[in-house]
Each structure stands twice: as structure tokens, then as C-alpha cells.
């Protein structure tokens, strides 16, 4: 077990060092996220005379935008991390880890998420200050919902990462998917089919917590089960797709090339 923990620690530490060493990059990404939010917020206010157009309320915009940021971070942590390692010519070295590449990919994603969380949280605070609307951040209720919602995104990220191993030049599709997430986030959550979509149902439940003040224990069990099933389905599908693509890449000798 220690092997896995130290391997995760090494990856987390590497990412923290790289973020610190390239602080300007990190900072400019954060500023970009905030500027995009500001444009959305000010634009929506200008067009709709003070009413947000994303979601039903201004809180909806904050929740939706924050979830989108989280989704992008989670999605790109997996898929982009694999592409970046391949481009850096380091994928083969990571593949030789005794923990296996799947663990390395998960560690890359989780550690990147932990590091990113430290940055997304202050931005969320800044968004609330900007809009003057303060959400209820009930972390014990919020974190499990966030984890289950993002599990689906990690699944999609893994599938895309697998496809990147085999097909390489898929940046365009990779970028388009980022905007598909917006549609998932703001799709109506009530129809049954929408509960099968990634992000949609989770964002609805998170909205109940941060906007409506509902606690995790007050959410009906069926709703939570649906979210858990959704997360497990997409994550499982992602793992399966990644495994198949990885095998194809090892058969065709594609791990070292980008």
C-alpha cells in the first residue's frame, strides 16, 4: 500500500513544484477564469437588465460557472495530463511504474484536483463578492456530491485520454467537449433521460445545497442513488475505454509517440 501512497505523493509534489515554478502561468489561468466569469456576469446583467441568463438565478450562474470550472479542471486533469506526458516524452517512464499507469493517471488527476481546488476556492469567493450573492458552503454535504458528480467527468476524461493514446491529434475534439459540458450543466434535470447525463443531476443536487440550503441527509435516498449510479456508470465506462485504448496502443507501439 505504501508504494501507492508514495507514488501519489511524488506526483502531487511534482505538480506543486511545477505550479510554483511557473507561477505566472498559474496566475494568468486564474485571472482568465475570473475575467470569463466577469464577462458572463456583466454581459448577462446588461442584456437581461440585471437577471442572469444562465440558470434561474444569479446563484445559479455562480454554481453553474463554478461547476463548469471544476468539470474543466477534472476533465483536463486526466485527458490533458496524459497528452502532456506523451508530448513531453515521459509517458513510457510513467507506464513503467510498479503501481501501473491507471494508478498514475488517477494520481495525476487527484493531485491536480487538490492543487487546483486551492485556486478555485478563492475564485469562487471572488465571484460571490463580485455578485454580492453568498452561497451556503456546507462542505460535509457538498464534497460527497461534488465527488460523485465529478466521477462522471473523470470517466469521460479517461476515455478521451485513452483515445489520445491511440489517435494522438484529438485536441479539437478535446476542446469541443469542454463546451458540451456547458450544455450538460444547464440542461433541465427533471426528465429521466437527463439523469443519465454527466454533470446535470449532480449540479441540480449541489444547487439544492448551496442555494436552497438543503443538507445532504435531507436529500432523498433515490436522488443520491441516481447520482451514485450516474458517477459509477461514466467512470466505469471511462476505465473500460481507457483499458481498451491502452491495449491497442501497446499492441501498435504508440505509447512513445505523439
Amino acid at each position, binding site marked *: 500500500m505504501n508504494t501507492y501512497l508514495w507514488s501519489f505523493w511524488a506526483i502531487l509534489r*511534482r505538480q506543486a*513544484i511545477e505550479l510554483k515554478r511557473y507561477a505566472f502561468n498559474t496566475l494568468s489561468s486564474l485571472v482568465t477564469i475570473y475575467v470569463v466569469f466577469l464577462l458572463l456576469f456583466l454581459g448577462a446583467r446588461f442584456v437581461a437588465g440585471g437577471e442572469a441568463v444562465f440558470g434561474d438565478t444569479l446563484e445559479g450562474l455562480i454554481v453553474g460557472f463554478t461547476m463548469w470550472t471544476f468539470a474543466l479542471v477534472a476533465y483536463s486533469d486526466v485527458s490533458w495530463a496524459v497528452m502532456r506526458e506523451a508530448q513531453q516524452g515521459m509517458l513510457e517512464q510513467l507506464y513503467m511504474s510498479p503501481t501501473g499507469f491507471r494508478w498514475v493517471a488517477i494520481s495525476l488527476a487527484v493531485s491536480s484536483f487538490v492543487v487546483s481546488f486551492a485556486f478555485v476556492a478563492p475564485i469562487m469567493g471572488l465571484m460571490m463578492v463580485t455578485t454580492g450573492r453568498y452561497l451556503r458552503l456546507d462542505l460535509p454535504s457538498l464534497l460527497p456530491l461534488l465527488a460523485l458528480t465529478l466521477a462522471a467527468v473523470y470517466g469521460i476524461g479517461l476515455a478521451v485520454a485513452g483515445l489520445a493514446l491511440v489517435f494522438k491529434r484529438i485536441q479539437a475534439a478535446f476542446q469541443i467537449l469542454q463546451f458540451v459540458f456547458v450544455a450538460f450543466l444547464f440542461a433541465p434535470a427533471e426528465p429521466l433521460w437527463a439523469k443519465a447525463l454527466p454533470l446535470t443531476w449532480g449540479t441540480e443536487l449541489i444547487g439544492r445545497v448551496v442555494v436552497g440550503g438543503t443538507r445532504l441527509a435531507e436529500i432523498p435516498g433515490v436522488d443520491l442513488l441516481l447520482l451514485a449510479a450516474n458517477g459509477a456508470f461514466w467512470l466505469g465506462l471511462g476505465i473500460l475505454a481507457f483499458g481498451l485504448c491502452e491495449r491497442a496502443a501497446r499492441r501498435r507501439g504508440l505509447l512513445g509517440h505523439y
Partner: protein
Amino acid sequence: MRAGSGTEACALEVKDLVKVYPGRTPVTAVDGVTMQVERGEVVGLLGANGAGKTTIIKIICGLLLPTGGSAKVFGVPCHHRSASRHVSAVLEGSRNVYWRLSVRENLAFFAGLQGMSPRESRARIEELIAFFGLTEKRSAVANKLSQGMKQKLAVACALVRGTELVLLDEPTLGLDVETSHELRGLIAELARSQRRTVLLSSHNMGVVEAVCARVLILARGKVITDDHVDQLLNGFRTRGYRLVLQGELADPVASALQERFSMRQLSSTDHRAELEVEIAPGHDFFELVDLLRGSGVEVDSVSRAEPNLEEVFLRIVRGGKA
């Protein structure tokens, strides 16, 4: 010829290995390779580009799945994840180190990736930094290092894991002569002092000759020779001499030298010729001296022509001996 027989304590066992890259025109990169490497052996894979060296190494690393046959490290099939506990590698074409991390951070990362705690790896990292002469650059970002230092760091990162089997794919490629000599010396020293099993691929004969005790020569995906380096050189040792002559070599003398002593002209100017001759069985050195004495040229120097691995390799792949 095959060296390294016996399966007990076998570090690496490759049997009837075949790798065909699929595609519109399938390419057979490895075609029925069988070999064994014992614990502590330092073995070289020699071959021209496309001979199958890198493919074999990548199959052993578990990065490629073979089309047929098997490869095992310490009895574990190479495509199993647990096999990677025994193997580390420096791969040609990969960067092998993170350019944004310092020397020390790279070593710490690779040690951690293998599951070593910082406490466990600290002493080992310091030892490797000192061994590879990177002490002054320990805090320098890899991107700022010279090519030679990057390569040394890559080898150090492969060794930090402490695996018994180390695979080095073209470790001196792209290095200048001096750094290449230094690195090959360090590899040889490491293999000797730490009793690591090393499989080194190169198309640089000097590296293989300096580092490896045994060599496998590959051509078109097949092993065409597997022997100890000194035995291979002995096998090709002839009664050859290298002569430097002053004066002009007349045509009849040149023809006689060609006919009786398989003369090969190495260089020639108006008044100086360098040539190599071979004294075949039934002839002796004095016949050569007599012939030259009568020709009017002056013998400036005579030395024994020892074969090197490059000549042996060329003779083998061109079909001189298998």
C-alpha cells in the same frame, strides 16, 4: 554461437519473440528472438537502425505487447504489471527526465514513483548525484543542463529505483566523444560495483565493447550472433599486420601482396602507404619481409592489427561469419 545458457537465476528470458507492427503493410520488427541473460551479466544488443533492438527493449519494459513468443524478467511475464518492479530503463527517443524539475527533484520524483519514501531514497539520491558528478548542478533545472548531463541524469533516474535489471537504449546517442567515453565508463563501473544486470542497446560498437561482457548481434529482427565479446574478437583475430611504408609501391609488388597476403590499402600518398596484410596458414612473416625488402620500399612501422567489434560486426552482418 550462444552464450548465457541455463535458466536458474535467470534475469531475463526471451523465447521465440515475434513482434509485427500491424498496419496496411505489417512490419516484422522482431522475428523469433530467443535469448537469456543471467543475473549480474552486462549484455549488449548491437544492430543497425531497424534491427529490432528498441522493440525488444520496449517489450521487456512492458510498453509493447509481443505478437508471439514470450519475454520474462525474473520469471514474470513482461506484460504483467508486477514485472516492472524488476526493470528500469532509459529509452531512446524519450526525454526520460522532467525538464522543469531540478536534478534532485527528478531523482526524488522517480524514486517516489516507484514507491520509495523520501527517507528511503535520500541517501541513494545523494550517492547517485555524487557518482554522476552532478553535485554542483543538483539544484539546476534539467532544461538548463548540457545534453551530456541530461543523459547522466536520465541514467541516474533509472538507477534510483534500485531494480536488478537496467535497460539502456542508446544511452550515449547524441553525446560528444568525451562525454560518451565518460558515461560509458560510469555505466561499466556501476554494473561492476553494484552487480546490476544490464541490457544495453547501441549501434556504437565502442560503447558495447567497453561496457558489455556479452553481445547479441541483430539483423532484420533476428539474433545472428550471441557470444562473449572477447571470444568474438578472438574468433576474428587473424595474423594481421598493419604496415607503414616509405616509398612507392610498384604494381607487381602490390599484386604479389594482394595475392599472397590479402593486402588492403588503408591510405596512400606519393611516398607513403599504409596497408594491412594477413598472413595465411602456410606462410610466415619473413616471406612478407623478404618481399618488401626486394621491392625497394622502406618499412617505417609494423604493428599487429587487432580486430575491433566494429570490424567483427561488419563481417558478421555481411555474412563473413555467423
